[in-house]
């Protein structure tokens, strides 16, 4: 079955890169997705927002991808923000692994953008 499980859209908003991830993020898709996102962030950018409002599933591979992004951005003094609305499976997993210790998690895209600007 060749369904595309994960879909990625990248958008440049001024000095901030917004990466929208939708679908299901597991071992099959997470490493590649993480690389694609990292490559899309130029050194000149001030920060990255990973918008996961439309992501339906995430597992530890997806979490590892987020932690990896946090590490890479921190080394370049760039900020990472994650959007994951409450009450959904993705937010629950982020909470369990206490991801907010690595980067702030927001309910919506606009507050996350406002925070970097």
């Amino acid at each position: 079955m060749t369904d595309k499980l994960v879909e990625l859209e990248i958008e440049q908003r001024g000095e901030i890169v917004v990466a929208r991830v939708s679908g299901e993020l597991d071992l099959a898709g997470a490493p590649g997705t993480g690389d694609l996102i990292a490559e899309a962030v130029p050194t000149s950018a001030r920060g990255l927002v990973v918008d996961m409002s439309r992501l339906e599933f995430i597992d530890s591979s997806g979490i590892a991808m987020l932690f990896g992004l946090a590490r890479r951005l921190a080394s370049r003094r760039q900020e990472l923000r994650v959007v994951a609305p409450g009450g959904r499976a993705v937010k629950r997993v982020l909470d369990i692994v206490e991801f907010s210790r690595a980067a702030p998690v927001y309910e919506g895209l606009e507050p996350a953008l406002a925070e970097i600007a």
Partner: protein
Amino acid sequence: MRELPELFDLGVKARSLAYLFLAGAGLGLLTLVFPHSDRIQDRELVILGLVAIAISALIYALAERMRNVDLHAFVAAGTVIVSLANYFVEATLLYPLLYTWSALYAFYFFRLRTALAHVAFLALCYVIVLALVDPMSPVVRWLLAVGTPLVAGLLISRLLGRLRAEGLSSDERALELQRSEARTRLVLDSAPDAFVAIDADGLVTTWNAASERMFGWSAAEAVGKPLRNLIFTPDERESFDERRQALLAAPETVKVLRMESDLQRRDGSVFPAERTISRVRIGDEVVMTAFLRDIADRRRAEQEREQLVREQVARTEAERTAEMVSGLQLLVDAALAHRTLDDLLADLVVRVRGVLDADAATIFTAENGASLRIGASSGGDPNAEDPGPIPFGKYFAGRVALSEQPMLARNPDPADLADPALRGLELNSLIGVPLKAKDEVGGVLVVGARAPRHLGTEDLMLLRLAADRVGLAISHARVYEREHKIAETLQRSLLPDRLPSLPGLEVAARYLPAATEAEVGGDWYDVIPLMGGGVGLVMGDVAGKGLAAASMVGRLRSALRAYALENHDPATVVEQLNRLLWTEGQDSQMATLLYAMVDPAESAVRWVNAGHPAPLLLDGDDDVRFLEGGSSVPLGVLPFPAYREISARLAPGATLLLYTDGLVERAGEVIDRGMERLAAAMREAPLNAEPLLDHLVDALVPVGRTPDDVALLALRSLPVADRFQIEFPTAPESLASVRSLLRRWLGHALSDQRVIAEITTACGEAATNAIEHAGAGGPFELAGRLNGREVEITVRDRGVWRAERQGDQGRGLALMRALMDNVDVSQTADGTMVRLRRALDG
């Protein structure tokens, strides 16, 4: 002569008679009041008067119960009373005038003959009276007394006769009119077309039953309403108004026009309609009527016809190609019909000439990859000498062999022709193609044409196709004894070497080649995983044997895979294949095919059957039945056959069996016996797909005596039960299947989507670990168990579990622990097992 209708009913007649008696009595008594002759006997007259009044009262009282005969009796009684009165006045006075009363009554109310009888009676009575009294000039008295009422009566009778006739005709006219209206209404109401009439103001006056059906407005609702708002779309209303005004203004008495446009139903739906509109002017009144007909079906038929024409044009195009291709196929058949290479080449060279419509052809065979030798020649001088070996690079043919490329030559120099037989032909064009066997040049094929025929690039293409087949044919002939093996290998290669693993489904297949035949048959099967978790199952049988059948299997297989992967529905897939076989197959080449789409999520199977034996369904509880529905003609028989899709429930735990006729057919036996045997064997078979097929083969295929090829394909929908156990390949791509399976399984027991998501996430972590660490250690196993109010899922792999450490792997375990009540990791000699448990609170 027709019976005229009665003008009066009996009640009216009776009451009139009663009044007559009363009036007669009154008049008689009144004569006694005035001075009169003393010959009149007052007492008797008074008695007669009272009797008459009494009779009057009696008649009046019985008026409604009177019969005709009673009336006659009373009239006769009146005549007798008048006669007595005349007797008592001695017939001298004017009392005979009273006879006129009963006579006129009779003429007025009775038929002419009866009335005349009454007159005869009174004439007789008066004769008696005259005889008794014996007055002066009795004959004159009698003539006047009887003649007067007779003449008056006859006149009245005639007058009434005319009145009756008149009444009849006006009654009939009214009745006829009524009938005609009813007939018209009936005709209108039973008409298949809607009929609508409107008046000059555009208001509906007639609305028949078909109109009610067509538009959804009842006649009661429609009549009196403006038509424009009832049947026209808002866009059409203005143009309707304009048309109506124009029609009203048109000078002709009758005007009829027909048009087609969309009309609107009450529910707002729109349909194409044909309208026949008539405008009739009757005096000052203008009536517009319209017959309306729904032409959606006709439109559809027209479109289908157009489509058919388009398809036929396309088909003609395809047929032309098919004709050439079938010519090429002859080359392959030749390979199968000859034992020696020389025979084959002699046959092939003639056929190649035929396919290309060329004047001459030569086949050269290569020797040791360095020189050519003439294998066969056609169209030239049959007595030409064989020139012996021709080195690569020399002559036209040699250059083709050396370059390994097809070549086209215009007006070739005869001296450049390697085959001396062709040198005298004055060829104006020449094509040469290498015959490739594996990767080396096995020979060269050269064809030539004389004017006016000119070989061009199209011929070159065709010759290359021919060369492929000739090359194949030659190599086949060279290894004739290996032909069976090659064809079998070809067919084997067309069967899936490994069936896909499908979550929730178990698939197994068998292919048993015929033991006695030298050539393989055209049985084939396929299993195609589809988008969204479904699977396509194919079982087919191409008529014929050998390479022709095998190559058609190859084409059908790749075409079917292409159509199936585009997620076309079964009927479309089979129709496309039919088109392929119809346009490209040889004459009368046909194939049976069963294509089924299984959707485990919906527990359903839908299939199309093109002349293939019906699949067998084993439902959990020993219920075995053939899915007989929807069987249609085999592929390649009709240009546009109707393939119908049928569906059935494929419950979890049920097994679907597809097979070819070799399984159920035996010489000298009706096929029904074989089907019965199959159903019986199926009932006794084990449930799992692999052992099930072993059982069927053991039970139904005689050892070593397989008369025909047999293919079998079984699919079992794994039961969504309290427990399951499935193996997955250790690849990241398995994770999506694991999740989809778990969601489906948990969905049967749980309703809380959040809980399902959490358990799925935890199991996904366990599966991720198995995939990352089991390495090449083979598949991992996922098992689930619903145990009372608890769900338990185990993931077993054959790898070594990494000790828990900080970082990504540690996070996976943390997730499992957070999402489940109990996580248990145990290490065994075979590998690792993770057991996850969670209580299900109600």
